């Protein structure tokens, strides 16, 4: 699928984009859990995981990387590519894993509460 975001209106998204944006840090940590990745790889993984439904703006991602590195939740390093330009890789730290696990727990608890308050049965509306 060649996505063309130019004709996509962010206002008409059928989900709470603000709510999603609030979890960008955790989403990135989750993407880095199993392997170290570079910026575009992270972006692509998030885009493909939602089937192109949700795209985080890359500008938001750069701010996220900077914050995560500053807080010591991920570490950045330049890889040595034999062809093409070098890439900056991010990998999760032990602190990052702990924060990821805690955020997922918090989210699960919050989700349960919201589901209860909205009278959603079971958790899947």
């Amino acid at each position: 699928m060649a996505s063309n975001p130019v004709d996509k209106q962010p206002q008409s998204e059928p989900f709470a984009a603000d709510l999603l944006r609030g979890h960008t840090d955790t989403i990135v940590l989750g993407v880095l859990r199993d392997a170290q990745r570079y910026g575009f790889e992270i972006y692509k993984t998030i885009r493909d995981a939602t089937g192109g439904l949700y795209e985080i703006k890359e500008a938001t991602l750069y701010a996220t990387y900077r914050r995560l590195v500053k807080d010591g939740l991920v570490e950045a390093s330049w890889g040595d590519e034999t062809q093409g330009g070098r890439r900056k890789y991010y990998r999760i730290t032990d602190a990052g894993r702990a924060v990821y696990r805690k955020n997922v727990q918090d989210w699960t608890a919050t989700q349960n509460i919201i589901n209860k308050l909205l009278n959603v049965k079971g958790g899947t509306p």
Partner: protein
Amino acid sequence: MSHAEYTNIHRYLDEAFTGLEMTADLQDLKEEIRSNLAARVAELQTDGTSAEQAAATAIEELGDVQEIIGGESEVPVSVPATHAGAFALNKVTPRSGFVIGAVLLSLVAVAALLWFALVLVSGGSAAAAVLSTVVLWLTAGILTTWSLRQETSQNYPVPRRRALGYGASSAAAVAGLTLMAMVSTAGMGLVVAGAFVLLGSVVGFIKLGISQTNRKKPWIRAVQRDYQAMDRFSQDPVAAARFGIYTAVIWIIALALFVLLSFTVGFAFSWLALLGGLVVFMVVLARMLFPAGEGAAQQTKQK
């Protein structure tokens, strides 16, 4: 800012970064954006988009590049006064189960060590020697793993598998040392076996050490950034280098004395050499970090 007309990512980036003082951080960011844009362009081209259209789309998707740059150059405001508050917010009280357990385990370890020493000195049964060492290395391993699994005010817990690795390496280190200590009762074979176990422990620690990532909490990193240059060794690299040499000399002498005393006087007293080394080391550390002249100089300056 309109950037739909750009069909070349390099020209686009060069123009976006013109007029800025190119710090190392900014250069780094520019290269990172460039590599990500290039990756996106390559992906679009494999889907059949023309080179120019691919570049335009990639640039469009990037969003506001000035916003990214703006975030980079913004100076974080450090407010040391909030650190006390940060500590209060992040304080983690140790779990009582762990504290009690760790104290009990330490007592068991000390008892096992004393028992082992007695067996070595007075020549007890082989079973007693084996039992005391097994207890000793088990407690060492469990204590290490358990401590690393604890969340503290400063650190997040180490993931389970890595904590087990550290525990196994510590247990192997203790096992190797005790095996080598039994040389006087059980012969040279044990020294070789102990050396191999110790080697395994060292390899384990090296593997864990080079793959160790940050586990400090964000707030403690903020505190460290603010106070980074405050201690003597970061202000005065020469003092740090001098201290490194002193340390090496102190421990080489202490170890040499330990080996010498072990063979002449015996294990009952040779450990005093290591204790002496530790005392000298701590005194030197205190003298290096807080020079005697400096406090007096500051006092006279204040007058």
